[in-house]
């Protein structure tokens, strides 16, 4: 088994520009330090219709109300501002930014415990045709390799994604390598589990990381 950079077609080049936008890094950095309630706010704002910050401050009184500590409100304000920058892009572009943010957040949390965290990589196995789609994030450790597919919403979980992850795990196992595969969803665990429950694709050895528990990516032994 070996990792390899994905070939860049025109679409990938455009998306790479979004991934490299400083807004993506700024928001991912803020979300990596955020509490769950701030992450819910970010999801709501980036899914939202209204882009008036005062509206969102009213929707999240625990973050912006009079009882919220100044440091909490200050951090939440920065998450709100960055999330609104994403929301203010057009519908098509905002969806690409949201995906890029989840990938960047995943990579940053993983980097707290793992050294070789990479993006847009394929996993190759001898004698097996390569998958078309690269993995969003990989941890390329010889002892404990990991691959991650990242989704903004649970609706992004589908049979293709699950099959690709499980196939990689199975092929690695044939080579005696324990490849850990996971899907990261910036959505409620409950909604992702409902999605998985209806899927006939094998996913019993695919780990689910949802919005509420995304900090576990950074934990040793996770």
């Amino acid at each position, binding site marked *: 088994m070996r990792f390899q950079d994905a070939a860049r077609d025109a679409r990938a080049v455009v998306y790479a520009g979004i991934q490299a936008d400083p807004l993506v890094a700024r928001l991912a950095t803020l979300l990596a330090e955020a*509490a769950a309630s701030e992450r819910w706010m970010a999801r709501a704002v980036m899914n939202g219709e209204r882009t008036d910050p005062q509206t969102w401050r*009213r929707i999240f009184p625990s973050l912006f109300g009079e009882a919220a500590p100044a440091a909490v409100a200050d*951090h939440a304000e920065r998450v709100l501002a960055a999330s609104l920058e994403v929301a203010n892009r057009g519908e098509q572009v905002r969806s690409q930014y949201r995906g890029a943010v989840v990938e960047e957040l995943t990579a940053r949390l993983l980097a707290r415990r793992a050294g070789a965290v990479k993006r847009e990589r394929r996993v190759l196995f001898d004698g097996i045709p390569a998958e078309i789609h690269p993995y969003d994030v990989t941890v390329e450790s010889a002892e404990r390799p990991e691959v991650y597919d990242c989704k903004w919403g649970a609706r992004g979980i589908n049979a293709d994604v699950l099959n690709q992850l499980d196939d990689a795990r199975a092929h690695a196992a044939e080579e005696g390598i324990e490849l850990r595969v996971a899907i990261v969803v910036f*959505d*409620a665990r409950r909604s992702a589990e*409902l999605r998985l429950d209806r899927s006939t694709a094998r996913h019993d050895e695919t780990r689910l990381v949802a919005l509420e528990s995304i900090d576990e990516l950074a934990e040793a032994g996770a």
Partner: protein
Amino acid sequence: MTARADVVERAAAAYRALADLAETIEDEWQYVTDLTDAYMPSLEALAKADSGRPLPAGAAEAVHEAIAEIGLIADPHRAIDWLSTFPHVVALALGGDVDEPAGVEKPGATEPESDEPDDDSPFRMLLRRPDR
């Protein structure tokens, strides 16, 4: 009817309308139905959470604004995105929890906290349950 029950009732009605819009995506009918079946009882159960306590400051206005937000949605795809988000937003405002089926206690909810955040952390209020 208590103020909490009134707020939850309005949120549940808005959620039902959101689900009706989302259901127009035929390919996702099952998922929309699963989400609604899962979240609606949990949303309604928020009426009984913290019974006897007044609503937290700003909670009623927060839910009112959240209802207004989902009322603006015309795109059924975006409605699906909100089916999993709206109940959590309402729960954050009211101080409840929609992570588990209604009537099921969250694992460890009654156990003492062993990983309390540092009191010096500015995020300690957010890191403590039930906000987690």
